[in-house]
């Protein structure tokens, strides 16, 4: 994952960025970096400033949240193709969970402030990227709702 062309190819292989116009992908690749993490490595911590927006290429990132007296819970894993750190694009730019690599992870990351600046300046980039971010976040929101239903619980929670 060294040169720009290969970065573009890798980006294009993810469902998040596939099919974006070549120009946009090249533009994205300009300020993206490859990133790797060892199993167990923490990528960011809940409440910290969210500095990196990333797309997972390989491996698995667990998003965890801490419940006092009950410990850490994994509420979601980010799988190849999906994004993490979207809070780097949305005020107040604070991480909403703790991210830990639970397998060796390869990702492509974008510096939050640089990406935000580019999105402000480059309308074409913003027009192409924001809907993708929205899809990724909406997909996650939907999943969260389904999880909330706790469908596999032995006793269905009845609220009526």
């Amino acid at each position, binding site marked *: 994952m060294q040169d720009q062309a290969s970065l573009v190819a890798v980006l294009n292989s993810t*469902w998040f960025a596939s099919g974006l116009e070549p120009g946009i992908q090249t533009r994205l690749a300009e300020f993206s970096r490859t990133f790797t993490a060892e*199993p167990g490595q923490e990528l960011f911590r809940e409440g910290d400033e969210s500095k990196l927006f990333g797309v997972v290429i390989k491996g*698995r990132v*667990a998003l*965890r949240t801490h419940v006092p007296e009950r*410990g*850490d*819970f*994994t*509420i*979601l*894993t980010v*799988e190849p*193709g999906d994004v993490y750190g979207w809070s780097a694009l949305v005020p107040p730019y604070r991480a909403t969970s703790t991210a*830990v690599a*639970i*397998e060796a992870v390869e990702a492509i990351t974008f510096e939050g402030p640089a990406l935000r600046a580019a999105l402000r300046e480059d309308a074409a980039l913003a027009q192409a990227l924001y809907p993708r971010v929205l899809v990724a976040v909406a*997909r996650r929101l939907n*999943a969260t709702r*389904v*999880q909330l*239903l*706790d*469908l*596999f*619980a*032995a*006793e269905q929670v009845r609220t009526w």
Partner: protein
Amino acid sequence: MVISASRSPRGSRPAIEGPGFLARADLQVLFDLLREDGRRLIGPTVSDGSIIYDDITSVDQLPRGWGDEQSPGRYRLRRRGDERLFGYVVGPTAWKKWTFPALIPLTRSTHDGHKVSFEPEQATAPKLAFLGARACELAALGVQDRVLIGTEFIDPDYMVRRANVFVVAVQCTTSASTCFCTSMGTGPEVTEGFDLSLTELDAGFLVDAGTPAGRAVLERLPLRAATAAEQYGVAATVAAVRARIGDPVPTDGLHDRLLAQLDHPRWAQVAERCITCGNCTLACPTCFCTTLTQTTDLSGETALASRSWDSCFSPGFAKVAGGSFRARPRDRYRQWLTHKFATWWDQFGTSGCVGCGRCITWCPVGIDVRDELNAIAPPVPLSPESRLVEPVAATPNEFVTARVVNTKAETADTTTLTLTGVDPAFSHGSTGQFAMVALPGFPPLPISISRFLTDGIELTIRGAGPATKAMCALQVGDQVGLRGPLGNNWPLDRAVGRDLVIVTGGIGLAPLRPVLHAIVADRRRFGDVKLFYGARTPADLIYRDELERWGKRDGIDVSLTVDRAGPDWSGRVGIVTHLFDQAVWDGSNMIAFVCGPERMMQAASTTLAGRGVSASRIHVTLERHMECGIGLCGHCQMGKYFVCRDGPVFSIAQLGDTFGREGI
């Protein structure tokens, strides 16, 4: 004369019990009797190199000593070297030429200034006798009866013509390579739909009557009682014909198999050969599609509307302003084949094909429907999963017992019980079926069979309430009461040769476990098999050892996910549909089995549909309150279905918009 398919009670003939024997030399007597009755005789005769049906008056016009050779696209007469009069197989003519003529006048209309009037043609029909109708042809007459006069609206012309026909059937003592009446369940034995039947022997015929009218004629024939040897000889000959034909088109499940293949590549391949001439539909004894043509006189004041045979192969058949719905040959071939062998059942409760083989012989390019059917909707070797056994203790007041020989705690609240001493019916049950399980003092409850063993079954039960908790608490040596196996099965036969996607959650894996066992036992019959399984937490995953084996050893692509997990879980966390909502697949070759909470099944179905899996190939299993398990108590109704009897497995196409609807 035989309009209803049922055979009338026999008249009495004290002189001869059973069939009579008519010497070949006396057959003319039958001709004369029928003609005395004012009937035109239509029968087989040689003309232009084939044996056709036509007006005849004398036995001498019959194809004495002639036989035929038929194969796809080929028909030849040949000398038999004997004196047989009916030693050939069906030719190009079908009896519908007389009962449903190719062209009839329908309505005369006139235009007089501003006034218009329409005058229906009066249906008239000559009294006819059909001589030599074969078993498949009797069935074809029955099919047209069903189509044209068997529903609310009747065809008046057909009605009159049909009522005026006396049918003399001939049982087949020879067959062609194109015959497949045995597969279509129509022959070679003549069993119904005739007035008189003949079976030819070396010296004459065995004669039997099927209606009082037939008996009246039979009683005037110069018969003697048939000997036991003659009767045996006839039965053996017809049995040999049956054996020779075999079962070229296995029809078990054909309706569903065919309709599941609307996007099979073979449609395009066969269409490269098909020249859409429509010969097959014209030769077919059951095809009934017609079109109207108007002929106007020179003044333009009176017009005659005539009805003539049409064919779904003709270019204008599905035309509307702007184009045709079936513009391509492949569309028309598919229309024809799926109508004959599948949708005809939905419309008329019968197959549209009787297996006469005419469309095979008379196709100019030699397309063989049997090959097309077997290639497009391949038959499945009869395996336990495609046949359902008779349940034991079927009625709700009976139970058989079984003994617990092993218990395995799957999770904190779920236990798998191994039962033996069960009635063999259970071991022969099919994937997806369930048992009604009873303990004294508790209501009997439906529980899926989660494994079929040679001498027992397994049940995997989650202690959801009092009864299931009591079942989970059973110990080795304890007994339970059982009824079953009940319900239908996963259509595993339809998955043969396809990629299979299994989506399940929680205890929903239990009814799918036998599917996985069946696949593993015969892995090569299936394409890629993917299992997507979701549970609440890692501790709620059932069959953990097996999940690992299926993935590591048995060539099944297993993906697990849980709704939440502790830090020690390195697997996926998230909803089960996220395991495949971004997958890049060829959904057109997939079949999906889905089991879990209804809300999850809805989400999975929608996601699968979005990946290109059609509704008829997505199957779910429904859970409803069940008491009788056999469609008697009414508890499990879902729209038009009893889930216990018609399900629990349904395709999304079957359920339509009742699936997931509130309060159904």
